[in-house]
C-alpha cells in the first residue's frame, strides 16, 4: 500500500508521547468499561444507530465539550509558550501546529457541533415537530462530522498536524512549502466534516419550512428557529465553496495540480478568496444561532416577549445577506486597490447596523421586564457589553486604511475572540443551562453555574483585553516567541494568567455536569423557567415522540399564551392517535467508519488503499437505496401510558423560577 507504518507515529517530544499514552489508556478504559458493564448493546441501540434528533443533538454537544477541551488545551499551551519572552517550552513547529489545530477545532469542531447540537435538540420541539425532515440524513450528518473531527484530531500523534494556520493560506499550505502530510489532514478531514454540515443545512431548511405545527406562520416562529433557518441557508450557500476549495487543495497536494501553487500559473490569491468566501459566512453561521439563543433566554428571564420581533427578523436576514459580500476585508492588504477596499469597508461596517438593532432590541426587551439572574441569563447579560467591545473593534478593523495597521496583529486576534467567545461560547453556555432539563431531565447546578460564569467571564477579559494593546504595540499573531526588548512581556504574562482563570472556569463547568448528573434532583418540572415557546410543553426529558398531540399555534410565544389560557397540562386522551416514527439505522455509523478509513488512506497518500476503501462508501449508498424500512408506529396505549406518567407527577415537581 506504500504506507510506511513504522514512520507514522510522531515521536520525540515528551508532550506528544504523553498524549499518545493517554489516548491509548483512554481507549482501553472505554473498551474495558463497556465490556465490563455489558453496555455495548445499549451503546449500539440507543446511541450509535439512533435517528432521534434529541439524542443526535446530545452527541453533538458531547463532542463539542470534548473538542472544547482539546482546543482549550491548545490555547493554554500557546499561552504558556508566550507567557515569557524567548521561552523554549514549545519549538516553532510545535507552536505552529498548535495554533492551527486550535483555530480549526474551536471553529469547526467546537462552535459548530455545540450550536448544531442545540439546533437539533430544540428546533423540532420549538416548531411542534416530531423529528427533523430527514432523520437518517441527520444521523449521517452527525457521524460524518464526528468522523472528520476524529480524523483531524489524531493528526498530532499520527503523521503530524497541519501547521499552516486555520486559514491554511497557499502557497505555504501546498507541497512546495509543506511537504509533510499534516496539511492533507486539513484538506480531507474538513471535507468529510463539511459534507455533514451541508446536509444539516439542507435538513433544517426543509424541517423548518415544511414541518411547523398548524398555525405557526413564519412570523410566529420563535427567534431561535428563525436564526436556525437563516443559518441553514447560509450553510447551503457557503459550504459548497469550501467543498470546492478543499477539493482543489486536495488535488494540489496529492496529485500535483496547480490551482494555488507558486509554479505553473497557480494563484495563491484564489485560495484566499475561496477560503474567505466560505470563511466569513461561516462566522455568521456560528453567530446567528447564538443570537437566537440569547433572544430566547433574554425574553424568558425578562418575562416579556422579544422587543421588535419584526426588526429582529429583518436584521438577521440583513446580516445573512451582508455576510456574503464582505470577505475581502480579511485581506485588504492584498492591494486590490482603493475602490475595492472602499466597497468592502462599507459593506463590512454596514453589518454593525443590523447588529446594533439587535443589541438595542435586546436591551429594550429587558426594559420594563423583571430580570431574573439565573445562570443562563447571566451569560446573556455578559454577552451584551463584551460583544459590544468586539463589535466596535470590528468596525475599527473594517476601515480598510486603518486595518493596514491592525492586520495580522494581536489586535485582530483580540477582536475575534471578543466576538466569538461572548457571541458563541457565552450563547452555548446560556443555551446549555437553559435547555439542559429538556435534554436530561435534571438541571445543572445554579450555584456551580455562577462560579463557572464569573471565572470564565473574568478569565476571558483578562486573557484577551491585553491583546488589543499588544497589537497596537506591534505584536503579531502566530509568532511563537518575542524578544525581551520588545516590551511585550508584562501584557503577555497578564494574558497567560487570564487563560488559567478561563480554564478553571471551564473545569467548573465540567464538574457541574458531573455533579448534576450524580446529585441533581430528578423531579424537575416540564417548564422550570416559566418559559414561552413550545419545547416547554413537553416532558423533561422529552418523550421520544416529542408531542402526544401536535399543538395548534395562535400567536408568537405560543406556549406562554397557552399557559395564560390554562391549556397546558390538559390533554384529551381521545385526541391521541398512533404516531409514525423513523426506525434506527446503523448505516450512518457505517458510513462514518468507511469515510474515516478512506480519508485516512488519502491523508497518507495511499491512493489504491483509499480507492478500495471508497468502494465501501458506494456499498453504503447502494444499501441505502434498497432500504424500504419507512419507520414504525407508536401505539395509542403506549402514548397514553407515557403521557400519564409525566403529567401525573407534574404537581409534585419543583418550579425553579416562580
Amino acid at each position, binding site marked *: 500500500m506504500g504506507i510506511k507504518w513504522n514512520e507514522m507515529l510522531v515521536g520525540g517530544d515528551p508532550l506528544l508521547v504523553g498524549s499518545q499514552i493517554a489516548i491509548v489508556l483512554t481507549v482501553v478504559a472505554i473498551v474495558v468499561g463497556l465490556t465490563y458493564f455489558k453496555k455495548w448493546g445499549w451503546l449500539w441501540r440507543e446511541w450509535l444507530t439512533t435517528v432521534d434528533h434529541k439524542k443526535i443533538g446530545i452527541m453533538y454537544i458531547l463532542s463539542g465539550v470534548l473538542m472544547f477541551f482539546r482546543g482549550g488545551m491548545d490555547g493554554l499551551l500557546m499561552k504558556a509558550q508566550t507567557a515569557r519572552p524567548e521561552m523554549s517550552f514549545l519549538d516553532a513547529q510545535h507552536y505552529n501546529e498548535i495554533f492551527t489545530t486550535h483555530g480549526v477545532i474551536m471553529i469547526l469542531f467546537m462552535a459548530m457541533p455545540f450550536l448544531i447540537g442545540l439546533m437539533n435538540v430544540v428546533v423540532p420541539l420549538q416548531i411542534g415537530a416530531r423529528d427533523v425532515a430527514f432523520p437518517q440524513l441527520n444521523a449521517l450528518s452527525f457521524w460524518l462530522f464526528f468522523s472528520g473531527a476524529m480524523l483531524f484530531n489524531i493528526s498530532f500523534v499520527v503523521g503530524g498536524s497541519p501547521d499552516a494556520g486555520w486559514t491554511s493560506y497557499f502557497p*505555504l499550505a501546498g507541497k512546495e512549502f509543506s511537504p509533510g502530510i499534516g496539511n492533507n489532514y486539513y484538506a480531507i478531514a474538513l471535507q468529510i466534516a463539511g459534507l455533514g454540515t451541508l446536509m444539516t443545512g439542507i435538513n433544517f431548511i426543509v424541517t423548518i419550512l415544511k414541518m411547523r405545527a398548524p398555525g405557526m406562520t413564519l412570523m410566529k416562529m420563535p427567534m431561535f428557529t428563525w436564526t436556525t433557518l437563516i443559518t441553514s441557508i447560509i450553510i447551503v450557500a457557503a459550504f459548497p465553496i469550501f467543498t470546492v476549495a478543499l477539493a482543489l487543495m486536495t488535488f494540489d497536494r496529492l496529485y500535483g495540480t496547480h490551482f494555488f501553487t507558486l509554479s505553473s500559473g497557480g494563484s495563491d490569491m484564489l485560495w484566499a478568496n475561496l477560503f474567505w468566501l466560505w470563511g466569513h459566512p461561516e462566522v455568521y453561521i456560528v453567530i446567528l444561532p447564538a443570537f437566537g439563543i440569547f433572544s430566547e433566554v433574554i425574553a424568558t428571564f425578562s418575562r416579556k416577549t422579544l422587543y421588535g420581533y419584526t426588526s429582529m427578523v429583518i436584521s438577521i436576514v440583513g446580516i445573512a445577506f451582508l455576510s456574503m459580500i464582505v470577505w475581502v476585508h480579511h485581506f485588504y*492588504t492584498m492591494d486590490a486597490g482603493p475602490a475595492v477596499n472602499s466597497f468592502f469597508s462599507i459593506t463590512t461596517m454596514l453589518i454593525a447596523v443590523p447588529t446594533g438593532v439587535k443589541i438595542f432590541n435586546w436591551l429594550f426587551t429587558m426594559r420594563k421586564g423583571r430580570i431574573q439572574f439565573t445562570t443562563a441569563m447571566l451569560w446573556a447579560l455578559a454577552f451584551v457589553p463584551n460583544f459590544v467591545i468586539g463589535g466596535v473593534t470590528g468596525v475599527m478593523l473594517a476601515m480598510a486604511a486603518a486595518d493596514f495597521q491592525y*492586520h495580522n496583529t494581536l489586535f485582530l486576534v483580540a477582536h475575534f475572540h471578543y466576538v466569538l467567545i461572548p457571541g458563541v461560547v457565552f450563547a452555548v453556555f446560556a443555551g446549555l443551562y437553559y435547555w439542559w432539563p429538556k435534554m436530561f431531565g435534571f438541571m445543572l447546578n445554579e450555584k456551580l453555574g455562577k462560579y463557572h460564569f464569573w471565572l470564565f467571564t473574568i478569565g476571558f477579559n483578562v486573557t484577551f483585553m491585553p491583546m488589543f494593546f499588544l497589537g497596537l504595540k506591534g505584536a503579531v499573531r502566530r509568532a511563537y516567541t518575542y524578544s525581551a526588548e520588545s516590551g511585550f512581556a508584562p501584557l503577555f504574562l497578564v494574558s497567560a494568567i487570564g487563560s488559567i482563570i478561563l480554564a478553571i472556569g471551564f473545569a467548573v463547568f465540567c464538574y457541574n455536569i458531573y455533579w448534576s448528573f450524580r446529585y441533581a434532583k430528578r423531579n424537575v418540572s416540564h417548564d422550570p423557567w416559566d418559559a414561552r415557546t413550545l419545547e416547554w410543553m413537553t416532558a423533561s426529558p422529552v418523550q421520544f415522540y416529542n408531542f402526544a398531540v401536535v399543538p395548534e399555534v395562535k400567536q408568537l410565544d405560543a406556549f406562554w399564551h397557552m399557559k395564560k389560557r390554562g391549556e397546558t397540562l390538559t390533554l384529551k386522551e381521545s385526541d391521541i392517535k398512533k404516531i409514525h416514527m423513523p426506525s434506527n439505522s446503523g448505516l450512518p455509523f457505517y458510513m462514518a467508519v468507511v469515510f474515516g478509513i478512506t480519508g485516512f488512506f488519502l491523508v497518507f497518500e495511499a491512493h489504491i488503499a483509499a480507492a478500495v476503501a471508497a468502494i465501501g462508501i458506494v456499498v453504503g449508498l447502494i444499501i441505502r437505496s434498497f432500504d424500504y424500512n419507512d419507520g414504525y408506529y407508536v401505539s395509542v396505549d403506549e402514548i397514553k401510558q407515557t403521557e400519564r406518567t409525566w403529567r401525573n407527577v407534574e404537581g409534585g415537581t419543583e418550579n425553579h423560577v416562580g
Partner: protein
Amino acid sequence: MKRLFSLLVAGLLPLLGGCEMVVFQPQGPAARSITELINWSIWWMLLVVVVVFALFAYIVWKYRDRPERKGEEPPEEHGSTVLEIVWTVIPILIVIALTIPTVRTLYDLEKPPKGYEDQEPLVIHVTSADWKWIFSYPEQNIETVNYVNIPANRLVLFKMTSASTMQSFWVPALAGQKYTMNKMETELYVVAERPGSYEGRNTNFNGRGYAHMQFEVLAQTPKEFEKWVQEVKQKAPKLTKEKYEELLLPTHLGRLTFIGTHLQWVNHADAHSKTYTNPELYRGHGYQGKTFTDEDNYKSSSSSNCNEEDEQQALESDSGGEHHGH
C-alpha cells in the same frame, strides 16, 4: 471609590504605558494619516460603548427582580417603530462619518504623501523570502538583507514581491502593511520624517522561521546615506547568481550587503519568472508526502520530468474507485 480608581489606574499604567504603542507614534506621513483615522474612529466607538454600557447598566439595575416584585407581570410590548428607526438611522450616520475619511485615506495612501509629490522617489525593490527580507537599490546597484537604509525626508517607493510564500511588509512607525506575493508587485510609498531606526517585520505567517522575520529601517540624513552608499561600493562583496540562490534557501541570515542586485537575473514580480521553490528543504516534522517537480522551477531544465507519469497513474486509480458510484 475615587482612591480605588486611581489605584487601579496606577496599577495598570506600567502595563499599558511602560512602552509606547507604535501605532500611535507615527514617524511618517503615511502612518500619521492612518493614526488620525484611527483616533477619529476611537472617539466614535467610545461614544457607542458609553451609550450602550450606560443603557445596559441602567436597565439591568432598574428592572432587576427583587423580592417585592414577586408575582408582578411585566407589560407585553411588541416594539416601537419610531425607536427602531432611530437606532437604525444613528448607526448608519456613524458608518457614514467613518466611511468618508476611510475612503479618502485609502486613495491618499496610493499616492506620494502631501508635500512630497514633487520629489523623484528613491525606488527600492523589496523581496521577501523564507525567512529574510532582501532590499535591492537598482539606482545605487546595492542589495541588502534584513536591513534597509533610506534617506530621511525623502520619498521612497518600495516595489514589493516575494520569492516564496505570501508575506506582509510592515513598518508600523512609517506606514501600514501590504502583502508581498510571488509573481505580483505591490507598491508602498514611505517617508521617514526624521532620521532614526524603525522596526519592520513580516506579519503574515509563513512557517518555521516566521517569528524572527524582522528587519530594520534606518533613516539617515542624506549625507549619511550617500556616505553609506559609497562605503558599500568600496567594501561589499559582489552578488553572484549562486550566492543569490543560496540566499533564497529557507534560512535565517543576519545582515548582509552586496554590490549589484538580483534584478539582473530575476525579478520575482514578473509573472513569467522562474519559481524558486525547494520542497525537499522543508521536510522535517512528521510523515512525509510526495512532492512534485515543475518545469518552471529554477533548477529544472525545460525537459519533462519522470514524476509526472506516477501522478497520472495515481489520478486514474483514484477516479476509477469513484466511478463505481455512478
